[in-house]
């Protein structure tokens, strides 16, 4: 079993904490001139996303987590699992709803996502920063209105609802930023 000592702590290091994989967000070396050295660490639980603080004695070791961020292509959803494929090894994995989380509203077949695998099992999915998705539901577009700056909601083929300009119509294809959920532009077919 691999372990890391506090001397190896750095941002991004993946470790086991209370049975869950976690990623180090911040590591502060705390040492009074006369007295004990400690590592004060902020970690993100990779399953829940929650950030926790922990103090370790300098030199203490903790278990490493077998966590890997892998670029994978989204294939399909069978109603229970979202299936992804490694395009180099053709290996496929199925991610459950907890792992896919908020990403599911952005998933379109063949898009390449970052899938975080823990012991080979997906625990989280990050969609591409920019996705191109078709509008399936919105109020009729106001032709020619490209200047008033008004917006309306539009439902996309993947399920997400975004605010779009008034001229957008059903069937339009949009470029959207998944980090902010914001409309960027109309995409050419």
């Amino acid at each position, binding site marked *: 079993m691999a372990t890391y000592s506090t*001397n190896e702590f750095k941002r991004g290091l993946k470790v086991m904490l209370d049975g869950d994989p976690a990623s180090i967000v911040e590591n*502060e*070396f*705390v*040492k*009074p*001139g*006369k*007295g*004990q*050295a*400690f590592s*004060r660490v902020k970690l993100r639980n990779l399953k829940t996303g929650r950030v*926790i*603080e*922990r*103090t*370790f*004695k*300098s030199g*203490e070791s903790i278990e490493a987590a077998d966590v890997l961020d892998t670029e994978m292509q989204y294939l399909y959803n069978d109603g229970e699992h979202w299936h992804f494929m490694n395009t180099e090894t053709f290996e496929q994995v199925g991610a459950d709803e907890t792992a896919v989380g908020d990403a599911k509203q952005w998933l379109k077949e063949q898009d390449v996502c970052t899938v975080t695998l823990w012991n080979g099992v997906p625990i989280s999915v990050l969609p591409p920063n920019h996705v191109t998705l078709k509008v399936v539901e919105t109020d009729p577009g106001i032709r020619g209105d490209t200047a008033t700056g008004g917006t309306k909601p539009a439902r996309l083929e993947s399920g997400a609802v975004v605010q779009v300009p008034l001229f957008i119509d059903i069937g339009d294809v949009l470029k959207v930023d998944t980090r902010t959920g914001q409309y960027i532009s109309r995409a050419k077919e």
Partner: protein
Amino acid sequence: MGWRPAATLGSLRERARVLSRIRAFFEARGVWEVETPILSVAGTTDAHIDSFTTRYQGPGAAGGLPLYLHTSPEFPMKRLLAAGSGPIFQMAKVFRQGEMGRLHNPEFTLLEWYRPGFGIAELMDEVEALVRSFLNYAPARRVSYAQAFEEVLGLDPHRADAAQLGACAKACGLGPVPDLGGDRDAWLNLLFSHRVESTLEGLTFVHDYPASQAALARVREGDPPVAERFELYVEGVELANGFHELSDAGEQRFRFATEREQRRAGGQEDVAADERLLQALENGLPDCSGVALGVDRLVMRTLRLDSVADVIGFPIDRA
């Protein structure tokens, strides 16, 4: 790019100005600058400070002479005091193994000075005068260790036992903490560094430490006995540590032995006691107080920067 300094040239020029103003401060007060060896056959026995080691080989030492890089110039400066130097200061690069972070670099610049005839109150006055000539702060607050501790944690640090301190550490919002067992001082250090320091605003002197944390300070008898030791904090960052210096050779010998025992128990490398310091104390150290101040941190605060790497040209990752 790897060859460039970590600090800007502007910061390094400011650093140079701080160094020359420190020298002027002491010259005006009749405290003269000394230099003592960086390489020494004696190291520190302090269980929480680890030394770098090296080796001299050549004329006079055909078999090789193991040497420590000093972690502070304290012992040879006390030998100068015992030889009758009067008030002295030194600015030296010192070296500590295993210390690296936002406020630490394994080699750093320490300003250390000694004042025969001063108690810690007078030395705190002088530290404050120096520091306030660089940092624009209101006069420093002075608070005892016990008061600072009790204000934040509601426990008497002199009387609480390890179990009470441990329970306090687990309940004070730190999240899970390492189990430090029956080691009272380790719990005190954890609580003080994680919970109390961050509450110390502006300039704060903390004085009268638990006798078990006297290090090289005299212990003043009383109920409870306290170490005549102080620390200066700037916005919660430790800047200086001072002592009414222990001059009793027998007591010093006993503390060296206790620290060596602590190192042995912790599985750390043994370090021999500095016999030349003990001889100097036996010969007689004048009644004096002394203090060590982190120059990198002083420059950092003077320039309102966040990390010592911002004021060191080449920290260890570029050295």
